[in-house]
């Protein structure tokens, strides 16, 4: 069973990381999690981002948060990436697999995955 001792160990390990994050600017990944997002499959997309950002050791500069309905329900699951400089990229019809690709190419590589953006979607 996952014990309280293990949780205490996580707490001890995380202490120094927290101070680093406060000092740096952050990239924010925002996942739409209203009824429309949930019904379209936003939960696995969110979980993929949370797990992948942790697995890649990016938690000190990238945060993953949830928001409500962005207003383009037909394109859900929708994910917005906000860069430090304020630039925003909107990804539509996301999946857990696409999320992994976005982390690899955009968050780590610095190049948005154009084919998944709203600009590339057929309007």
């Amino acid at each position, binding site marked *: 069973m996952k014990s309280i001792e*293990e949780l205490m160990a996580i707490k001890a390990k995380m202490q120094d990381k927290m101070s680093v994050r406060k000092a740096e600017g952050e990239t924010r990944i925002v996942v739409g999690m*209203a009824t429309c997002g949930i019904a379209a499959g936003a939960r*696995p997309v969110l*979980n993929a981002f949370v797990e992948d950002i942790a697995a890649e050791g990016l938690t000190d500069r990238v945060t*993953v948060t949830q928001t409500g*309905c962005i207003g383009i329900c037909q394109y859900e699951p929708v994910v917005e990436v906000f860069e430090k400089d304020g630039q925003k990229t909107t990804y539509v019809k996301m999946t857990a697999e696409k999320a992994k690709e976005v982390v690899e190419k955009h968050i780590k590589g610095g190049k948005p995955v154009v084919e998944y953006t709203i600009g590339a979607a057929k309007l």
Partner: protein
Amino acid sequence: MDEFSLYVLDIVNNSTRAGARNIRIFLREEGDDLYFTVEDDGCGMSEEQLARLRDPFFTTRKTRKVGLGVPFLVMLAEMTGGWVKIASKQAAGEGEDHGTKLEAKFGLHHVDFLPLGDLCGTVTTLIQGAPDTDFLYLHTRGEKQVRLDTKELRQVLGDLSLAEPEVLAWIRENLAEQYEQMNQV
């Protein structure tokens, strides 16, 4: 939505959006019935909001003109021989009680009911989305139960956020292990 856990996620999100600091989620299986209760200390709803809650063309949001969360839940409940009851109270004055309580019953073995689905994923997602809110999650099936209380975790974590991926992973695994024990015959 193709699993029950997504309905839970969607409905409890209403409590977090209502600014609740404490949310209690109960799932109780009794024979062929499943009871689902959510209690929060959020801002509550006015009588007008409450009266129109089941109307899919009513919403307080500005980004679209429909609100389907509660209507979906009512549909699933009524389709499986159950019901949904909602009571809510807005604070009349400073320091007054406020919040919402939703109770629903579903036919657990009804042909139109859905798989329970990834409840661990729902609880983890709720905590990730509102790491400063306290959640009590209790799922009972006869003598067996799955339980998580973020107040207890916070005592260990201090000022470390519940939204830290390592903490979320611990929560998910802890719940999964509890469910494994519950599902042992």
